[in-house]
């Protein structure tokens, strides 16, 4: 591996986005599965970095998941998006940042399509007016929330308490970075580092002391596949893709997977559980899996957030071995407790993969 080669590409694929004043749009999946991640993100950018990230209660889903499940027409998705942009405009913002990768891809695609086919843009403008009586507007800058963390990665490093280093050996943790397909595969120039060697997560990992693993199936999809997951009959496709990735990364013995898409960590996490149940195989050491975390969770960990405040207990794969490696203190008793130590019981332990 020649790092200079990658560095050259990273230098070529840097996009120009402002570092403050964003209209923040949430992700359906992140809110549902990793609710603490968005909380952490906003806490970091607002309170730790002092930036202006405005959230408006009227924004909704972008419809991207329904669009990519072919449940709604393209025009519908575009009009919902136009509505979101209009909300941003109404709130006096022109920088738009979204938490979801599917959204980010769809926003990018929509803006490009409008650019290429002005008549379609005109049609959507009309739809927006007919349905919501809102003024059509487009953002000046579009970013994904991981782009923000990437941009502030060195600021975060300055506040870092627990670098991505194994405290026992002193060696950097081996980190697999997994980029959501819709981040830059459709429009390479819209992602930090492009489509082939995206830098957005690599930059974070390296800034926080970790070592990135480049394994053969690095670029492959986690296997979500929208309809391929939503219908139970199709889930073989989804789990098989994740399986392929784990088989490929296994020899590198990664300590951690970092992702920027909200869906990927769900699949990379839960499919490890399914693979273990079905084949008895686990990919971490001693019957553990490999934790698959969101970038917010990783940022939170290195900045010293409490693991259970970060919501690491909602992962099926046990997080404790990673916390031990990083030397992060945690209270095992608090793991499954609710607000004010409310007893919520303990999830059952699976057969083949350790959850504690």
């Amino acid at each position, binding site marked *: 591996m020649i790092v200079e080669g990658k560095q050259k*590409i990273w230098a070529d694929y840097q996009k120009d986005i402002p570092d403050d004043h964003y209209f923040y749009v949430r992700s359906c999946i992140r809110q549902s599965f990793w609710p603490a991640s968005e909380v952490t993100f906003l806490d970091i950018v607002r309170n730790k970095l002092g930036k202006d990230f405005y959230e408006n209660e009227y924004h909704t889903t972008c419809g991207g998941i329904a669009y990519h499940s072919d449940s709604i027409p393209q025009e519908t998705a575009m009009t919902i998006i136009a509505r979101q942009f209009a909300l941003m405009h109404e709130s006096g913002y022109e920088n738009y940042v979204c938490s979801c990768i599917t959204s980010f891809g769809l926003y990018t695609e929509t803006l490009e399509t409008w650019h290429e086919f002005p008549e379609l843009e005109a049609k959507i403008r009309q739809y927006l007016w007919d349905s919501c009586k809102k003024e059509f507007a487009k953002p000046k800058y579009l970013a994904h929330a991981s782009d923000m963390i990437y941009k502030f990665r060195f600021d975060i490093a300055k506040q870092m308490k627990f670098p991505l280093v194994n405290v026992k050996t002193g060696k950097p943790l081996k980190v697999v970075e997994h980029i959501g397909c819709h981040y830059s595969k459709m429009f390479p120039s819209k992602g930090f580092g492009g*489509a082939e*060697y995206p830098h957005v997560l690599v930059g974070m990992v390296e800034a926080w002391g970790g070592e990135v693993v480049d394994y*053969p199936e690095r*670029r492959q999809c986690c296997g979500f596949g929208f309809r391929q997951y939503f219908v139970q009959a199709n889930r073989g496709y989804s789990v098989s893709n994740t399986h392929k990735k784990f088989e490929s990364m296994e020899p590198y013995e990664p300590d951690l997977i970092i992702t920027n898409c909200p869906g990927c960590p769900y699949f990379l996490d839960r499919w490890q559980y399914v693979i273990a149940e079905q084949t008895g195989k686990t990919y971490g050491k001693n019957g553990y899996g490999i934790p698959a975390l969101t970038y917010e969770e990783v940022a939170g960990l290195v900045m010293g957030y409490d693991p259970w405040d970060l919501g690491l207990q909602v992962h099926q794969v046990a997080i404790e071995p990673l916390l031990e490696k990083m030397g992060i203190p945690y209270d095992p008793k608090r793991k499954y407790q609710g607000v004010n130590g409310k007893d919520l019981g303990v999830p059952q332990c699976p057969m083949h993969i350790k959850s504690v």
Partner: protein
Amino acid sequence: MKENILIIGGGAAGMEAATQLQKMGLTPIIIEKSEALGGHIAQWDRLFPAFHPAKDVVEKMLDQVKDVKTYLNTEVVDIQKDNDSFHAVLSNNEKIDAKAVVLATGFDIFKAERKQEYGYGIYNNVMTSVELEKFFRTGKDERINNPKKIGFVHCVGARDVKVCNTYCSKVCCTTALKQACEIKEVFPDAEVYTFYMDLRMFGPGYEDLYLKTQKDFDVKCVRGRVCEVSEDMDGKLVIKAEDTLFGKPLKMTLDVLVLMCAMEKNKSIDAIQQKLGVANNSDGFMQNSDMYLGMNNTAQDGVFVAGACTAPKSLPDTIGEARSVATQVYNYINR
């Protein structure tokens, strides 16, 4: 009749044009930016389709131009047309007047790192066809370490909208097969694969070379473009392609991957070209005035083109064009 003819570029086209012009009684002057005449072909080991040593051809050509006035390590920095003569300023500050200009500036090799998914410059064992040729010439390349499996990828930087080159680079197919045979000669036990989309064997003896590649050298030709390259734990290359004839995706591990890099227009001449008023065609090469009858002519009187500056060309094509440009120049001078 001792008119100066300015030839920019001392490769095969420039040398051959100079040779012919000198025989016609004109005074060719070659401007070569590098330290020696010969161009790309001088860096080549053997030529397709019959494995003829390139050195033989280059030496003969060099011998023919030994009396031609030649500037090495020199570029044209400015040129102006005044009535029917050209005034050129060279990088060594010399000034040359000439009655006609022949652009024989040839080509550049596509920068393989631009095709990011192939990992050139990132994965250790990915190399270009030019580097492989150098290995044949010198016997040295640290990437080639008794390889067991070698792959060739065709159309790297050609027929590809994503790198803005939609044209076919013409000579890479035959070169790939030639190199595949040669690497088999060096490592007879190695398995050699080529990943092609079409094998464009357009010249005499080329199809025979193809047959020989398959039959005598047991090179395996797989129809399908490699979609991505990655590196495994042992530093071996994992490639993916579709075996399009079989209709299934294919995956394999290779020790060395050779990228058949396309020819691109030599852009170092752009400024002078602009001053001479010669436009580029849609492929980014120089625009000649007519594909059939005006292949050596440009929109500018007195400015001629020859060789790979107008499109990717093989050596015989280039020499043919160099000879025809000489006739065109001669007729122009005697008009």
